[in-house]
């Protein structure tokens, strides 16, 4: 039986503002911050942490997507096409999660975080891909786009390539998302950028757009299963929605490399803690 009092609610609210802020900035839902916090610090059982997190991911995503869509930073067509894979994956993941033991979830989550760490550190090199030849799917669906790069005061045009590969990866990202209560943004952003050659800001904004739908699919499964605790979830919704509004204002200025590296190292530490917990080694935080 989980008992959350008023002081925990305040702490969760504050942490979720940070999660919403970082999520909006990096094209994530914020689940990779919320889940370790709830499980390792607050001692919340994994299913309830995942249930609350997946609901808050919908809030982070919708809150930040509202701004990015208005500013034409999101590639709406690409997002809608990739949602086919993402939602199919999320439904698969939400159903498979019941079959997996908690320890396996901890280890899987730790591995996801380790992957995220390397991506964060590698992503320093992601910039403006040039001379990209669109593939047939991209041409057929009219996926090329343009956006205003404020840090350079210029309109950047881009093409989309290897769309089927990205759709395929998106399905697996969707599974991870449904399993672990995250949005999957940590996989969508680097895939869109490194595989399909989409500028990193557009990839972040499109990821934010997509994860709302992915998370909504898994959230409804977790909700009816009884894994959404009201007192845990309410402060998360309020906090991330506010934090995301702040985060969208920052993305317009390119995130400094040092912030990405610091964030990457922090993720590495958390991922090791989650894996240790998975192997039943006591972790004190």
């Amino acid at each position: 039986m989980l008992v959350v009092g008023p002081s925990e609610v305040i702490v969760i609210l504050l942490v979720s503002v940070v999660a919403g802020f970082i999520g909006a900035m990096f094209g994530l839902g914020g689940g990779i911050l919320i889940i370790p916090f709830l499980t390792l610090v607050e001692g919340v059982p994994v299913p309830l942490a995942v249930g609350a997190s997946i609901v808050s991911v919908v809030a982070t995503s919708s809150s930040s997507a509202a701004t990015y869509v208005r500013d034409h930073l999101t590639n709406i067509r690409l997002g809608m096409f990739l949602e086919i894979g993402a939602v199919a994956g999320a439904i698969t993941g939400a159903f498979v999660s019941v079959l997996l033991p908690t320890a396996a979830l901890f280890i899987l989550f730790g591995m996801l975080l380790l992957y995220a760490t390397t991506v964060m550190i590698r992503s320093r090199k992601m910039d403006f891909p040039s001379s990209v030849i669109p593939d047939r799917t991209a041409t057929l669906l009219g996926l090329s786009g343009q956006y205003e790069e404020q840090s350079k005061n210029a309109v950047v045009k881009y093409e989309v390539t290897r769309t089927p590969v990205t759709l395929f990866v998106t399905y697996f990202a969707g599974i991870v998302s449904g399993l672990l209560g995250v949005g999957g943004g940590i996989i969508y952003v680097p895939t869109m950028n490194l595989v399909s050659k989409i500028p990193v800001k557009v990839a972040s904004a499109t990821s934010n757009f997509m994860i709302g739908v992915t998370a909504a699919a898994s959230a409804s499964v977790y909700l009816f299963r009884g894994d959404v605790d009201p007192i845990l979830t309410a402060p998360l919704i309020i906090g991330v929605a506010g934090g995301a509004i702040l985060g969208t204002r920052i993305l317009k200025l390119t995130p400094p490399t040092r912030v990405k590296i610091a964030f990457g190292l922090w993720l590495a530490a958390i991922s090791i803690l989650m894996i240790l917990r998975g192997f039943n080694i006591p972790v004190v935080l």
Partner: protein
Amino acid sequence: MDLNRLISYSLRVGVLTSALLSLVGLIAWAATGYADLSAASGSGVTGTIGSAAGGNPAGLIYLAVAVLVATPVFRVALSTFYFARDRDKRYVLITLAVLSMLTFALFSGVSG
């Protein structure tokens, strides 16, 4: 109104409504003296939402969650109508595929 603006407004309204309901729910919870609430499941969720009008804290928060989850679903449905109006068959099919999977997720959750 263009699609970007329609989507942007609907997402913003959905999230703000949900955050506001969550806040009212927390205030109602404080008013009960921080009563012990546990997570409802299955038809218990829909039943609890029904008690939101009476100021039940869990009901208000579950209503907030329902509004939140409905927000991106509504966004997809809105896009389907928009593409249908523009006679953009490919995107009508794409958004319908996403919409039907979302409907499946929702109903399998309700019955399971």
